[in-house]
C-alpha cells in the first residue's frame, strides 16, 4: 500500500553481535514516508541496538546494509545524518540544567558550521518547533524542573528543530503517566501528516495498536511479524513475543 511513497529507511539482512552473543540475525524491513513504525519485542531483544545501528553508532560492527534517504549509513557523516535522522532518547535528566528554549535550540546545531553557534534563523526555527510541540509556555523553564511528559515533548520539539524527517524514538512513553503517553503519541502521530517517518519502540501493544501504521515485531534476533496492527497484532503474536500463555492474557482482558 505504501509502494508509491518514498522509502526513507531500508534495512536488509542486518546482523549484530555483542562479543559472541548474536543479538540481531538477519533483520530486514523498510520504513516509508508518513508512517509510524512501532518496534515491539521483549527486553534485551535488540530494539535499542537496532536503533543505534540506524543512527550510525555501530557502522563498523554491524553486518548487512542500512540505507537512509538512499545513502548507506556507513558512508554518511554524523553532520549529514543529523539532517536526515533525529533521535529522541527516553526522557532523561542531564547534569546541567538548560532552559527548554536552549535545549530545543541545540537541535539546530547541524545547520551551522563547526565553529559557529545557531543564529537568528535557527532561533526562529526553534521557536516554531517549541510552538508546534506545545511547550511554548515552558520555554523559559529549566529542562530538569519540568515533568517527564513535558521533557518528552521538549525532545520532540528539539527533533523538529533539527529538521530531519526521520524520527527514531527509544521508548518515548516509558515512565510517563497514561495522560502523557496519549499526549506524546498524539503529537507524534500528527507529525506523520507532514511527511515525517517515525520509528519507535514500545512495550505497550495497546499504544502500538492505536498509533502505529505498521508493527515490526522482533523475537530471537529475527523479524517475527511485520505489517498493519490489524493484520499482525493478535494474541498469538503477543504470547510468543513475551513468553506468555493464552491464560496469562485472560487475566488482563
Amino acid at each position, binding site marked *: 500500500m505504501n509502494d508509491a511513497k518514498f522509502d526513507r529507511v531500508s534495512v536488509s539482512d542486518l546482523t549484530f553481535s555483542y562479543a559472541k552473543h548474536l543479538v540481531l540475525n538477519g533483520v530486514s524491513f523498510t520504513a516509508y514516508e508518513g508512517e509510524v513504525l512501532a518496534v515491539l519485542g521483549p527486553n534485551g531483544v535488540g530494539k535499542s541496538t537496532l536503533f*543505534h545501528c540506524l*543512527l*550510525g*553508532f555501530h557502522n563498523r560492527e554491524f553486518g548487512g546494509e542500512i540505507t537512509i534517504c538512499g545513502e548507506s549509513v556507513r558512508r554518511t557523516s*554524523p*553532520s*549529514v*545524518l*543529523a*539532517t536526515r*535522522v*533525529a*533521535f529522541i*532518547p527516553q526522557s*532523561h535528566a*542531564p*547534569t*546541567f*540544567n*538548560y*532552559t527548554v*528554549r*536552549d535545549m530545543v535550540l*541545540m*537541535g539546530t*546545531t*547541524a545547520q551551522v558550521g*563547526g*565553529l*559557529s*553557534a*545557531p543564529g537568528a534563523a535557527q532561533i526562529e526555527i526553534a521557536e516554531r518547533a517549541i510552538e508546534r510541540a506545545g511547550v511554548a509556555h515552558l520555554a*523559559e523553564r*529549566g529542562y530538569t524542573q519540568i515533568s517527564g511528559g513535558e521533557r518528552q515533548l521538549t525532545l520532540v520539539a528539539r527533533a523538529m528543530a*533539527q529538521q530531519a524527517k526521520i524520527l*527514531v524514538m527509544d521508548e518515548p512513553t516509558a515512565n510517563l503517566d497514561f495522560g502523557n503517553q496519549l499526549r506524546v503519541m498524539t503529537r507524534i502521530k500528527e507529525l506523520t501528516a507532514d511527511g515525517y517517518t517515525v520509528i519507535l519502540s514500545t512495550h505497550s501493544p495497546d499504544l502500538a495498536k492505536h498509533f502505529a501504521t505498521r508493527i515490526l515485531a522482533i523475537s530471537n534476533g529475527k523479524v517475527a511479524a511485520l505489517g498493519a496492527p490489524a493484520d499482525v497484532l493478535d494474541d498469538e503474536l503477543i504470547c510468543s513475543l513475551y513468553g506468555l500463555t493464552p491464560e496469562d492474557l485472560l487475566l488482563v482482558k
Partner: protein
Amino acid sequence: MKKTHYSSIVVGLGVLLCLAFVVSVTLGRFPITLRQLLNALFFARSEVSDQLKAILFNVRLPRILLSCMVGCSLSAAGASYQGVFQNPMAAPDILGASSGAATGAALAILLELPGQMVMLFAFVFSLGTIALVMLVSRFARGEKLLGIILAGIMISSLTGAVTSYIKLVADPNNILPEITYWLMGSLAKTMPRDVIFAAVPMAIGLIPLVFLRWRINLLTLSDNEARTMGVNVGAVRFTVIVCATLITAASVSVSGLIGWVGLVVPHLLRRLVGNNYRHLLPASMIGGALFLLIVDDISRNLLITEIPIGILTSVVGAPFFLWLITRKKEVA
C-alpha cells in the same frame, strides 16, 4: 529578552574588570595616583619619574596583567572541563595538569635551574602528563569519559609521588623552601617576560574554546545524543581537552598552584548567566580575571609580608564549596 539580559551581565562584568584594573594599578606599597598613571601611559611621559615608570612597567602592570590572564584561563579551563566531563565538580586539575606542572617545577628547582627553566619545565611536564593520560585512556575499556578521569587520577597520583620524593631529597635549607613556596602559588615574582611566556599558549587555547563554546553544550548531554545532532563528539571533546589543558599548563607554570578559581568562578557564574556556554564561557573568562585580580590585590596589600595567593583562594574557595554542597537543590 532573556538573552539580552545575560549579555548585559557579561558586559557589566567587563566594565567591572576595567575599573578593578585601574584601581589595582594605583594600589600598592608605592602608591601611584590616577594622574601619574595617565601621564606615564599617554600624556606626559617626561613628567613622570624613572622610578615610578620602573615600578609601573616592570612590576605592577605585568603582575596585574598576569593575574587577570591566569584567572581568566583557570576559570575558562574549569568551565570547559565541567562541560566535557559532564561533572559540575570538575576543576582544571582534574586530569593532573597541575600535579604534572608541580613535578616539573620541583625537578627544575632541585636541579637549581634558573626561573625561566622552572617555568618551561612546569609547562612541558604539565602537557606531558595530560598526553600520557589521554594515551592511557585510549586503551581503557568501557565508558570513555570514566576511562579518561580514572587515568587522570592514577597518573596525577604518580606525579604527586614523584614530587614528594623530590621534596624528600631536596636540600632543606634553600631548595625545599623554594619548592614549597612555588607549590603554594604566587604572582609575587612576576616579570614582564612571564606575561609574554604565558600569553602565547593562552591565546592558542582560549580562541578555539570561544569558537567551540556552543558545542560544549551538546557534550554535556550523552555522547549518543550529541552525535545524533551532528556533533563529532570525539573530535570536539579532544579539542576542548587539549585547549583547556594548554591554558591550565600556561597558568600553572607562571603562577604555581592556585586552586579553586576554576571551580568557584564558573559555579558562581552558572547562577548568574545560566549553563549555556554561549554566555557562560565569556562570563567565566571575565569573572575569573576579575576574581583573581581582586584576590591578588588583597594578597599584596593586606599584610606587610605578602600572603601567597594560592592560600587566599583556598580561604575563599573552601567555604564556597561547602555552601555549594549544602545548599538546597534548585537551579544548578
